[in-house]
C-alpha cells in the first residue's frame, strides 16, 4: 500500500542518515525545494528509500548523500537550478525514464575529495553492496540533458545500446585518449575523469535532450569501431 502525495511542495526537508527505512511513497507532480536526504559522511550510516515512485517531480537544489535507494522509479524530473546530485548513494533496481533534466551520481560526499579515509570507506561499502546486486540502474528509456554515472559498475546498468556504451579500463589509457583527435569535449571529459577515478569501467551516455546528441551517438559508434567501447 503506497502513500500518495500529489501536487505537493516539500521544502527544507533534511534527513541526517538516521539509519531508518522509508518505503511505500508515490509522489505525483510534487516539487522539492532544498531537500537533502541521508546527509552523512559516514559510509555505514545510511537511510534506505525503498518502493518509491517520483512522477513528474521538480526540484531546486536537492540531493542525496549516503542513501540506499532500492526499487525506485523516477519518471520525469525537472532540475530548476543545480543538477540533482547523489553523492555516495548506492542503487538497486532504480529506473530513470522520461524527461529528466540533469542528474549527477558521484561516488562519495564532497568531504571524500578532501579526506582519503572517507573516500575509501565509501568505495569499500559500494564494492560490497554491488557484489550482491543483479542490476542497479535502468537508464534505457531516459531522455536527459545530462547524466553522469560515476563508480557504478557498467554491467549493472541497463542501457540503450545505441546511445549508451561501456568503456572498460583495459581498453583505454591517457595516452590513447590524447591521441583521439575526433573525440568531442563531452566524452573526452568523461573518460579523463574515469581514468582519474580508477574505476573498472564507465558508461558513456549521449543525452537525448542535448543539442549535440547526434554527434555523440556517432562518437559512440566510432569508439566501438576503435575497440574502445564495448560492442553490445
Amino acid at each position, binding site marked *: 500500500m503506497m502513500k500518495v502525495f500529489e501536487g505537493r511542495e516539500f*521544502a*527544507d526537508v*533534511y534527513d*541526517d542518515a538516521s539509519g531508518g527505512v522509508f518505503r511505500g511513497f508515490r509522489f505525483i507532480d510534487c516539487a522539492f*525545494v*532544498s531537500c*537533502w536526504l541521508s*546527509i552523512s*559522511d559516514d559510509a555505514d550510516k545510511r537511510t534506505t528509500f525503498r518502493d518509491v515512485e517520483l512522477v513528474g517531480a521538480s526540484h*531546486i*537544489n536537492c540531493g542525496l548523500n549516503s542513501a540506499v535507494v532500492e526499487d525506485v522509479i523516477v519518471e520525469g524530473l525537472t532540475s*530548476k*537550478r*543545480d*543538477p540533482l546530485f547523489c553523492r555516495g548513494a548506492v542503487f538497486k533496481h532504480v529506473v530513470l525514464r522520461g524527461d529528466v533534466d*540533469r542528474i*549527477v551520481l*558521484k561516488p562519495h560526499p*564532497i568531504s*571524500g*575529495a*578532501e579526506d582519503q579515509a572517507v573516500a575509501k570507506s565509501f568505495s569499500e561499502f559500494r564494492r560490497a553492496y554491488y557484489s550482491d546486486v543483479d542490476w542497479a540502474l535502468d537508464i534505457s528509456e531516459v531522455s536527459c540533458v*545530462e547524466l*553522469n554515472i560515476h563508480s557504478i559498475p557498467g554491467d549493472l546498468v541497463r542501457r540503450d545500446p545505441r546511445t549508451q556504451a561501456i568503456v572498460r579500463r583495459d581498453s583505454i589509457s591517457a595516452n590513447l585518449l590524447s591521441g583521439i583527435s575526433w573525440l568531442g*569535449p*563531452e566524452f573526452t*571529459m*568523461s573518460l579523463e*575523469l574515469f581514468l*582519474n577515478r580508477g574505476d573498472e569501467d564507465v558508461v558513456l551516455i549521449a543525452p537525448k535532450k542535448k543539442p549535440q546528441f547526434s554527434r555523440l551517438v556517432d562518437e559512440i559508434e566510432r569508439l566501438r569501431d576503435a575497440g574502445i567501447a564495448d560492442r553490445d
Partner: protein
Amino acid sequence: MNERQSTHRTSDPPARYNADMARTATKGEKSLASLTFLVSLVALVAAAPVSGLTAAWLQTASSSSAWSEPAAPAIAPSYPETRDRVSGKSGPARDRLSSELSRDLRQGYEQSCGWEAVGSLDAPGGGAQAAIRERVMANIARSRSAREASNFAGHVRRVEATSTFQALVGRANARLARNPSLFADVLSEDELIASASHAGLARANWGNVVERLAADEIVSSPQLRGLFRHVGGAGNPDFIGLGRYGGLNFDATTVRQITTHMNRPGYGHNLIIGTYSRPGWFPLR
C-alpha cells in the same frame, strides 16, 4: 470669652459631637484627596510612554528569538492627538522628525522608567489593565525610542547575518583554494567542460563551487539549515535567510562584482554580500 466658649464646647455634648464630626469630615476629605492623587499618579506612571521602550523589549524577549524585531503593536492609536494629526489640521508643515522629537521630549519619552511599571502590565487584570495596556501599546507606536530600538534590533540582526555569511563564504573559498580537486568533484561534467573551454566560465564556476561548498556546509549543519536556504539561479540570490535571518538575501561574489550584484533587479537593493577571492594561479592555462 475664650474661657466661656471653651467651657461651653466641653460642657455641651451636642456641640462637642458636631465639632468632632466636622474635624473628622475635614480629615476624611484630606484622605480622599490623597488617595485620588495616588491613584492618578499610579495610572500616570503605568500609562506613561516611557515604559513603552521596556515593554517593546519585553515583547521582543517573549517572541521566538532574541534577535527578532519587536512586533508592531496590535492596537492602533485611538487617542485624540493622533486623530487630530491624522485628520490633517491646517497649518504650516512641520519637520516630522523635529516635531516627533519635541513631542517625545515634551511627554517625557526619553526619561527612564522602572521595570516594575512594565511588569505590572503583564499581571492579570480586568478592564482597567486592558485600557492601560492599550494606552501603552499606542504610545509605543508613537515612541521614537521604541522605533529606534526596533531599528537597532534589525541592524544587529543584519550585522550578525553579514558576519555569519562572510565566515561561511570564507571557509568555502579556503576549502577550495586548499584543495582544487574539489572543483572536479563538485561540478558536473558539463560544467567542467564549460570551465575548460573558457577562462571566464572557469572563473564563474569557481564561484559556483564556492556557493555549493557553502550550501554543503549549511546542509550538514542543523543550525545553519535554520538560517539559510540555497536558492541560486538567474534572478535569485544565492541564498535566502530563514528564521531570524528571514527576509534577508545573500550572494557570494568577488569584490569587483559587488556593484553588479547590488544593482540586480528584484533583490539587489537589500542584499548581503559575502566576498571571496580566487587564487592568482586560477584558472590554469
